[in-house]
């Protein structure tokens, strides 16, 4: 039994795509000081701050209120605490990190260890689940595609999906929201505030950050124990000299070529991978899922054992990819990490390295399915092929904010051409004076 969801393709490559290694925060290819004032002001406005979430020690949890047995349980906003709305009792969920021993002995991992919530999805299990309400006997249906709790409309009991059935809806763990809605709205407002000048007019007119929704998105959190080898050629400059006369000077280089190979053993702890085929497709030509990808990582060490009560009041997306379908993505990222790890060891090759071959040996992996909290604001830009859905996403734990703001093309083109014409004028003036 397996599900038929096709795994997402690797994102397209090329400049300006998510295959670029993201620039360091604060780094820029153009010095903003050289740009006109309105553009400079936008670029230099402060970014929303991402906070550091410290680990809180958490204790045991239950589905019913452990004190009075009521089911009207919600997460207290901004905390990992569950609160009973009937008797006001508050309690913590158990951290999976200690409960399952995650993060321990990664260097001794062997084979593929899959937590129960990350098991293969059975194709014949429906997303719709019907419960018999134990309060009154009525039947209540929960659509696990987008919700994990429902209220019985007869007796008002809250029912949550807690049993791990093979439809991928119930993960091993959940990381509750810490950033409150007001905070998320403020961050989105600040993010868009510094991207106004060239923003699409309709986007600015319809901008209502209060419509942001809290969504629990499905991820696989992977620990890995791997070895990697890379081989290629590298060059060291031995001489630099110029040839030609005054007007036509050219610089030449001599270099030694070396054959190089490197080996590195490493472990990765809590690498997050999108386990929804739609979210994992980072093709920036047709979607803006790379925005949600950018706000990773989360402080997954603080995740608590699954309890549907945390999802009360939020929507969720169901996992539809299995471990085996995600393996190529994991190996691609592990190879990238290996290449980053060996960079320092080839520092002496000042003319760079051309890696030609790479090999990855995965000794062991551990997979845990987790719901991670994201505040999402979306804007649909009409256009060919159904247009483009632009997201602005706020990490529900750290507050890291990223977004795609649609641009007013003619305005951006006009600004670029104006600056280009100005530069060309300077160039012509310089040529006129030099001859």
């Amino acid at each position, binding site marked *: 039994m397996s599900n038929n969801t096709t795994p997402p393709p690797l994102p397209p490559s090329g400049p*300006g795509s*998510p295959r*670029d*290694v*993201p620039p360091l925060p604060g780094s820029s290819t153009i010095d903003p000081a050289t*740009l006109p004032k309105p553009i400079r002001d936008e670029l230099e406005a402060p970014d929303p701050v991402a906070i550091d979430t410290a680990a809180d020690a958490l204790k045991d949890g239950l589905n019913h209120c452990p004190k009075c047995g009521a089911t009207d349980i919600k997460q207290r906003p901004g905390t990992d605490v569950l609160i009973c709305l009937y008797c006001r009792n508050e309690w913590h969920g158990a951290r999976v990190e200690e409960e399952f021993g995650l993060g321990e002995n990664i260097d001794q991992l062997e084979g593929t260890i899959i937590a129960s919530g990350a098991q293969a999805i059975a194709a014949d299990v429906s997303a719709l689940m019907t419960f018999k309400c134990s309060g009154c006997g009525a039947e209540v249906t929960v659509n696990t595609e987008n919700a994990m709790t429902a209220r019985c409309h007869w007796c008002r009991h809250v029912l949550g999906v807690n049993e791990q059935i093979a439809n991928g809806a119930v993960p091993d763990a959940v990381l509750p929201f810490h950033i409150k809605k007001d905070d998320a709205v403020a961050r989105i407002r600040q993010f868009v505030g510094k*991207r106004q000048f060239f923003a699409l007019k309709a986007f600015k007119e319809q901008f209502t950050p209060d419509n942001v929704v809290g969504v629990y998105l499905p991820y696989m959190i992977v620990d890995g124990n791997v070895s990697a080898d890379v081989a*290629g050629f590298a*060059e060291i400059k*031995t001489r630099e000299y110029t040839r030609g006369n005054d007007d*036509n000077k*050219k610089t*030449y*280089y*001599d*270099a*030694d*070529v070396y*054959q*190089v*190979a*490197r*080996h590195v*053993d*490493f472990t*990765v*702890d809590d690498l997050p991978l999108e386990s929804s085929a739609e979210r994992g497709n980072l093709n*920036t030509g047709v979607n803006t899922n*790379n925005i949600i990808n*950018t706000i*990773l990582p989360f402080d997954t060490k603080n995740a608590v054992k699954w309890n549907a009560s945390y999802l009360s009041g939020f929507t969720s997306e169901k996992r539809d990819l299995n471990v085996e379908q995600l393996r190529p993505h994991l190996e*691609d990222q592990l*190879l*990238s*990490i290996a290449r980053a*790890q060996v*960079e320092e*060891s080839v520092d002496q090759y000042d*003319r*760079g*390295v*051309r*890696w030609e*071959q*790479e090999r990855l040996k995965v000794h062991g992996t551990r997979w845990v399915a987790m719901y991670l909290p994201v505040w999402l604001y979306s804007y649909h830009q009409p256009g060919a092929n159904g247009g483009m859905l632009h997201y602005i996403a706020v990490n529900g734990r750290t507050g890291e904010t990223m977004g795609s*703001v*649609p*641009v007013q093309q003619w305005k951006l*083109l006009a*600004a*670029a*051409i104006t*600056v*280009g*014409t100005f*530069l*060309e004028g*300077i*160039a*012509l003036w310089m040529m006129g004076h030099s001859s």
Partner: protein
Amino acid sequence: MSDGGLELLLLGPAGATGLYWYLYRYYRNTDKSHAFERETRVDAKPVTGADNDDKVDEVKGTRETRIDGDNVREYRHRVTRIRDG
């Protein structure tokens, strides 16, 4: 016309294209993604293999400042994968 003159004439179009892409990416962030290479907790043992680096050739009089096909910082650019077995 000399190379210097042509390069000067290209200043306008190059500046316009550069500014366009720079601002487009600032608004649309198409080049952003999870920087897992530096944001994941990686525990690596010391890198080995440097002792076996071998000089195999010399290059004389090239005008290129970097090795042809330099990909030392393009971690996500996949090269030929050697598979065991």
